[in-house]
């Protein structure tokens, strides 16, 4: 299996692949015109209407607080006709509904469920990007490059936004400038009851360290970033050292100091009892042998000859079995991810299968048979 995907293909191979691609395109086109079609998302609008409600404190009549009270559509209409739109706020939420609800509504002669164009376009884009990424398996191509660039760009943008709203705002700005944060960034936050907490001034240190880290971007100020980096490395090393010693060294050592003989399950059958005892004890013995053999393999101060060499050899076998198990698990994981994407294409996009009972099974089956 030495030929690579970058090598030129023979005309026969090219023809076969052209037929495969054409078949996929034909299935998609055909599927679009069978039954209820494919790849659509339906939503049901849900009006959200609120009116401002002012409540007076029972202890102090001059103390008032306001909150928003949600009203039903009928109540809201009555309120608006009496008081106007002042002190009200409204918006519409769109709840995704299974397509079968839309089909039932159409059969009954209409209703509030509508096709969501933004979500439908999103679904088709997801299908396009999935296929574009898969297309790399055939060979590198512009669709793959485009999809890859979009993933990188979106991820970078997403991380920036998340970094600002989930780290800088709550961990820094809300502590150093709570009033500013409440006014301009997070109106839902509660201001500290006793005013600004001066102990929060300690957060100036990470602020300064953060700016120093940005010094890397300036050629002459690169050295400034060494201080925050040293801080990060130092704290992480300290934090992890304690965790690893406690969890991976002490606890794991304790778990390895185990009895080699284990009494099996106490069953009525003597044979089963002996059998389970043998297996349970064998597992313990193998565990201890494995730990010791692997430790010997990684002990390089003594030449791996004679008994040490043979023990190290056993260690290698243990390691190989571990790598095999890791490989098997990795394959299983990757296939599960592939299966999830294929399920998405067949279910959400092409409506060929309906495991979630979102549509009508008969329609899906007819689509497949076609």
């Amino acid at each position, binding site marked *: 299996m030495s*030929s690579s995907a970058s090598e030129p293909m023979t005309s026969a191979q090219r023809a076969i692949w052209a037929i495969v691609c054409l078949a996929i395109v034909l299935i998609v086109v055909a599927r679009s015109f069978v039954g209820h079609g494919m790849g659509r998302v339906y939503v049901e609008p849900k009006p959200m209407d609120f009116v401002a409600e002012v409540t007076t404190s029972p202890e102090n009549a001059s103390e008032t607080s306001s909150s928003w009270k949600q009203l039903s559509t009928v109540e809201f209409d009555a309120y608006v006709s009496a008081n106007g739109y002042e002190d009200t706020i409204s918006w519409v939420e769109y709840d995704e509904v299974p397509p079968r609800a839309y089909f039932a509504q159409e059969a009954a002669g209409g209703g509030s469920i509508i096709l969501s164009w933004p979500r439908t376009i999103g679904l088709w884009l997801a299908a396009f990007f999935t296929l574009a990424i898969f297309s790399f398996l055939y060979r590198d191509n512009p669709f793959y490059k485009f999809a890859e660039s979009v993933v990188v760009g979106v991820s970078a943008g997403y991380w920036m936004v998340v970094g600002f709203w989930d780290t800088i705002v709550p961990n820094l700005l809300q502590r150093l400038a709570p009033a500013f944060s409440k006014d301009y960034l997070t109106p839902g936050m509660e201001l500290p009851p006793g005013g600004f907490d001066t102990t929060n001034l300690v957060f100036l240190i990470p602020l300064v360290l953060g700016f120093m880290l940005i010094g890397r971007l300036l050629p002459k100020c690169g050295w400034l970033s060494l201080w925050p980096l040293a801080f990060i490395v130092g704290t992480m090393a300290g934090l*992890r050292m304690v965790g690893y010693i406690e969890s991976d060294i002490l606890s794991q050592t304790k778990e390895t100091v185990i009895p080699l003989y284990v009494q099996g399950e106490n069953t009525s059958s003597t044979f089963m009892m002996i059998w389970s005892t043998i297996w349970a004890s064998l597992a313990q013995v193998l565990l201890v042998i494995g730990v010791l053999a692997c430790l010997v393999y990684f002990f390089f101060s003594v030449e791996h000859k004679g008994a040490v060499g043979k023990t190290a050899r056993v260690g290698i076998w243990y390691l190989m079995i571990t790598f095999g198990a890791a490989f098997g698990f990795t394959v299983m*994981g990757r296939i*599960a991810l592939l299966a*999830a994407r294929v399920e998405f294409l067949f279910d959400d996009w092409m409506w060929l299968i309906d495991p979630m*009972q979102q549509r009508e099974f008969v329609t899906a089956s007819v689509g497949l048979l076609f």
Partner: protein
Amino acid sequence: MIKLLENLDRRWIFLAMALCVSVPILVIGLTGVTFPETPTPLAEAFFAEVDRAGEAKGRRANVLIALDYDPASAGELSPMSASLVNQCSQRGHRMYFISLWPVGPQMIDDSIEKVIKRYYPHLVYGEDYVNLGFKAGNEQVIKVMGIDLTTEFRTDVEGTTLSKIPMMEGITSLEDFDLIAEISAGYPGSKEWVLYAATQYDIPLVSGMTGVQAPQNYPYYPTQLKGLLGAIKGAAEYEFIVNEYIRRSRLEELLVASGLDPAVAGPLADEPAQIPAWTTSAAAASMTPEAKADLIDAATGATPGEFLEGQRRMGPQLFAHLLMVLLIILGNVIFFAQRRRGGSA
């Protein structure tokens, strides 16, 4: 033949893999038939630990559910999350959702929408479950939560102050949780929860994880990790156990509601296949036709597709693994054939 295999274009292998995955998905999707699962002790331990959480304290359990993964691993991990939330909801545990991954809140929303809002609409936000959202800081977040949870989480994901959320009363640190259930796709994930929560504070921890992580985490079972779900196989096993548990619990509820003695209802609920015949017996004479229909539906009705994701994905696994085994054998055959010919191996 060997010559052909030696020069086989790798795209044929990709195509074969695509067929091995696609065809079972289509067949399972259309027929609804999945492969039978036999749960391993690891999955059973995971289930048992969630089931008995809080029992020692004689109150509703506080379960911290950390969904530390993103859409890239959702295919492997979302079946675990769905079943975990399903079990906790049915069991009546209080669920506290958090994530150490930036895209984790979407995974939390997905689980809440897919399971709680659809199948447990009676559960109230703030009383039965709360979404504390994402916190940046990786293992430092766990470390700080161990000392004072409110330092890291001052509001829920909607911005509501924790003091205004009823179920947050009495929750000040990790030690106030009866169980930490974690679904992990990498760093930060199960390893960090073991290091900084389970080991340091001796809090029961169960974890579901991707296949890549599983071998590294096996040594922690059963002391530091009380239960472990490895990859989609673990998800399918756990899903199977939870689905059986849900069916049994609902049957028992219906039987007791119809006036049956709990001592009789329990064993009967263990045998769902016997329920249709039982409804025609004299013991069920007092039941209304509607109650009988509900009982038969609960006993023999199909499990919702949301809770079969893991089991469905075991079909493609089987054929893809068979292909992999075949390819490894072929690769070795080619290797030894080349060596016998004296060519470069």
